[in-house]
């Protein structure tokens, strides 16, 4: 009962303290208003664009919804982390006032209530600001997005506002504010009265337990990554893959405080500005670890999607069966070969025969993996000179080819390094010979146009293979994948002389559209999570600036250049964003790297071509996350330090 009756005065105290510490209050409000605005804008846009007839919606709706809610969760986590840092620092500044309250008889619970009430009130203001801001944003973006997804809604596209969604956003915003205040409230409640009166907060314990939990989670995540390779093909494999990524994500985020501490220890050898920036971060882990964790959680989302897309593209490259590559043209006569070579600058032609003749003479290639049913490997054997190997894309196997090996184009086709040639050479009896083989990792050639295997003319003669007298075919390899114009030229050639029989690969429009859509989603993700990262780092730097005013005054008094504050802020922001970015890269690539390493251990034991390819690193994305965003964060934070701290008190003595 006493607790209820004391809410009134406690709320008044909370409100007045919030007004006294305007900068922290404003930061907390912004931290709540931004995710609320994002949630409102996002849900309203999704509802307004949801047209069942739209092709774009049919193709992408499920991925967009997953990405949107993942982003919303990440934004809320980042908001809670940074708001918690702001509340902690505000509570530290209010220590004396809290101490006076305690001395006047307030209990620990009542002190905690002051902190929570303050955060809830500011959170409410943030929610009330965020909802209209989100609706305005949605109104502004709707016509553009409608055009982008091909919906004929026009400039006056109707905005579909669902009150339930607004309530959900408001509830989540308020919850985030209260959750952010929980740890500072518990600390305030446990504070000894004398320490509070002296405005001295005992140092917090080193988070060893958090470090241990983080390390264990990362190890478990990587272990699950290995396990899922062994379970390839099982129905549990996708779930284990998801659990692996989740464990690595949470584990690395939990390690952010230990990482900040570690970086702080290594500051001794840095120049003065760097040392000050790094030590300040390490001495205030509440805000720096929160910012690193927020950046990590944000940037890990595009990194994971980017790494997944890169692995999928690499798998397509390595495994997807194909008839011809996009830089190859197959023709059946010397005239056609000459005409095509002339129309493709830099192209080289390679004549080859196949060991197949009308009348039943045939050589086919066999092996445990090659003979797997439903795999569709073309078992034919191309016989030619070195240039046919180059035209097929197997130049790296040139030495083995010259030494008499069969070159297999595919993945895991020759795990034991040999193939069996089945020779039907009427009227001689059928026979089988085993020859050494090497593999060039590439998509298997399927169908009848181009064989999956090649052997040199000299080796074919030495082995006494038939088929050397069949008319040659010509494989032409262009210097780069064929352009639309070049394909048009080939079509024109084909139309002029239908007898020429020219074959080439047409790009798959569905695949192209998918790749383009994926790129757009990835770009949007990088933009949104980049903003989350920049916001978190800027908030941490603003808090650092408010706490470091005294030190900055001292630096100025000692003769630091006026730009020192700017450099310190830029240095801190760069370091926070780089640490967060590197953790995000580790989260994105870690599970796939472990999976790739494990797959190379497993691969020789597999009789079928399956399992992930070598690790594909999305370098552009890595550069954006680990270099570009930190550079932007540094530039943004340097603006915070544009006015140097005063060198003297306002009044002389």
């Amino acid at each position, binding site marked *: 009962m006493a607790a209820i009756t004391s809410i009134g005065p406690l709320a008044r105290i909370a409100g007045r303290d919030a007004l006294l510490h305007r900068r922290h209050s404003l930061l907390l409000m912004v931290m709540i208003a931004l995710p609320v605005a994002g949630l409102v804008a996002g849900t309203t846009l999704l509802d307004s664009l949801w047209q069942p007839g739209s092709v774009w919606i049919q193709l992408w709706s499920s991925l967009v919804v997953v990405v949107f809610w993942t982003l919303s969760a990440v934004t809320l986590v980042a908001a809670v982390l940074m708001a918690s840092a702001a509340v902690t620092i505000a509570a530290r500044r209010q220590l004396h006032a809290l101490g006076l309250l305690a001395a006047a008889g307030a209990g620990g619970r009542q002190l905690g209530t002051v902190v929570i009430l303050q955060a809830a009130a500011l959170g409410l203001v943030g929610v009330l600001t965020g909802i209209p801001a989100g609706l305005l944003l949605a109104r502004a973006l709707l016509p553009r997005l409608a055009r982008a997804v091909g919906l004929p809604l026009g400039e006056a596209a109707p905005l579909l506002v669902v009150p339930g969604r607004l309530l959900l956003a408001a509830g989540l915003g308020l919850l985030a504010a209260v959750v952010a205040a929980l740890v500072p409230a518990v600390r305030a409640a446990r504070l000894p009265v004398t320490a509070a009166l002296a405005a001295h907060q005992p140092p917090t314990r080193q988070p060893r337990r958090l470090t241990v939990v983080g390390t264990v989670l990362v190890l478990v995540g990587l272990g699950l990554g290995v396990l899922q390779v062994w379970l390839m093909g099982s129905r549990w494999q996708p779930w284990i893959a998801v659990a692996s990524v989740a464990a690595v994500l949470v584990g690395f985020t939990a390690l952010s405080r230990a990482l900040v501490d570690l970086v702080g220890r290594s500051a001794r*050898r840095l*120049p*003065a500005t760097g*040392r*000050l920036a790094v*030590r*300040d971060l390490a*001495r205030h882990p509440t805000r720096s670890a929160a910012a690193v964790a927020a950046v990590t959680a944000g940037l890990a989302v595009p990194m994971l999607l980017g790494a997944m897309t890169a692995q999928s593209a690499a798998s397509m490259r390595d495994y997807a069966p194909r008839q011809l590559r996009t830089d190859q043209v197959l023709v059946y006569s010397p005239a056609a070969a000459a005409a095509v070579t002339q129309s493709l600058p830099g192209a080289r032609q390679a004549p080859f025969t196949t060991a197949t003749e009308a009348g039943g003479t045939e050589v086919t290639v066999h092996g445990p993996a090659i003979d797997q049913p439903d795999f569709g490997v073309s078992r034919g054997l191309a016989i030619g000179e070195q240039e046919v190997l180059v035209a097929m894309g197997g130049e790296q196997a040139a030495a083995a080819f010259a030494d008499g090996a069969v070159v297999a184009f595919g993945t895991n086709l020759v795990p034991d390094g040999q193939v069996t040639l089945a020779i039907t050479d009427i009227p001689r009896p059928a026979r089988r010979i085993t020859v050494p083989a090497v593999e060039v990792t590439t998509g298997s050639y399927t169908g009848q146009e181009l064989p999956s295997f090649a052997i040199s003319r000299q080796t074919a003669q030495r082995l006494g293979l038939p088929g050397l007298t069949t008319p040659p075919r010509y494989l032409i390899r262009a210097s780069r994948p064929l352009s639309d114009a070049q394909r048009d030229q080939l079509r024109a050639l084909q139309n002029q002389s239908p007898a020429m029989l020219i074959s080439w690969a047409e790009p798959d429009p569905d695949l192209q559209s998918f790749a383009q859509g994926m790129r757009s989603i990835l770009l949007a993700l990088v933009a949104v999570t980049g903003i989350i990262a920049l916001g978190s780092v800027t908030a941490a730097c603003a808090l650092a600036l408010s706490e470091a005013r*005294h*030190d900055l*005054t*001292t*630096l*100025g*008094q*000692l*003769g*630091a*250049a*006026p730009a*020192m504050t700017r450099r310190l802020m830029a240095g801190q922001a760069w370091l926070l964003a780089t640490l967060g970015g590197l953790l995000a890269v580790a989260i994105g690539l870690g599970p796939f790297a472990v999976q790739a390493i494990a797959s190379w251990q497993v691969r020789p034991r597999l009789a079928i071509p399956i399992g992930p390819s070598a690790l594909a690193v999305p370098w552009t994305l890595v550069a954006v996350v680990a270099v570009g965003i930190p550079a932007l964060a540094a530039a943004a934070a340097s603006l915070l330090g544009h006015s*140097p701290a005063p*060198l*003297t008190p*306002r*009044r*002389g*003595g």
Partner: protein
Amino acid sequence: MTAVLEIEQVARTYGSGHTQVTALDGVSLTVQAGELVAVMGPSGAGKSTLLHVAGGLDRPTSGTIRVTETDLGRLGRAGLAALRRRRVGYVFQELNLIAALTAAENVALPRELDGVRARTARTEALAALELVGMAELAGTFPDQLSGGEQQRVAIARALVGQRPLLLADEPTGALDTLAGEAILGLLRARCDAGVAAVLVTHEPRYAGYADRIVFLTDGRVVDQTAHPTTVAGRWS
């Protein structure tokens, strides 16, 4: 003798209209190399303001200040910062040590800010800490030091780098009598080695170490000829 600090008709006012406060009103003062001048006066007399304008931390409303013949009025913000790094050592009333840096790093800071290599700056810092008897605690952070030890580190920071002018604002405020005497002995020794120093103090006992005492009241110099031996009991 060479004049290291020359202050001519300096005034400093804060605010305007009916809230205007005059902290300094036509103050003139010259400090020669090797001279230790004590500035005394009641609270609000303008002692700290005098040190602020002399050290280039604040600009006077009118008048001229020269440090080793450089007119501070002609310097911009960057020029004043360079002057503070190279020519003025400052001991602050509130110590102002940076908590994130060790004692040696705090002392080396003005030198490092001036572009001196970290290793050289550290060697100079250790020498300065040796002078104040703090070399053994060079690797300690300020929050692990007592008030007296922190004050010694602050003084070492003002001594490092052979700067010709030393400004000390109540440097013994946090110290007991014995430690205060030791610090003043140290300042005196630096002046005997050729450094010019201005010491703001309330304590006549410490003013006894000075060559000359300047009395300030309401922003004006009321006496700058007094010798320490004549002031015993005047402000006690």
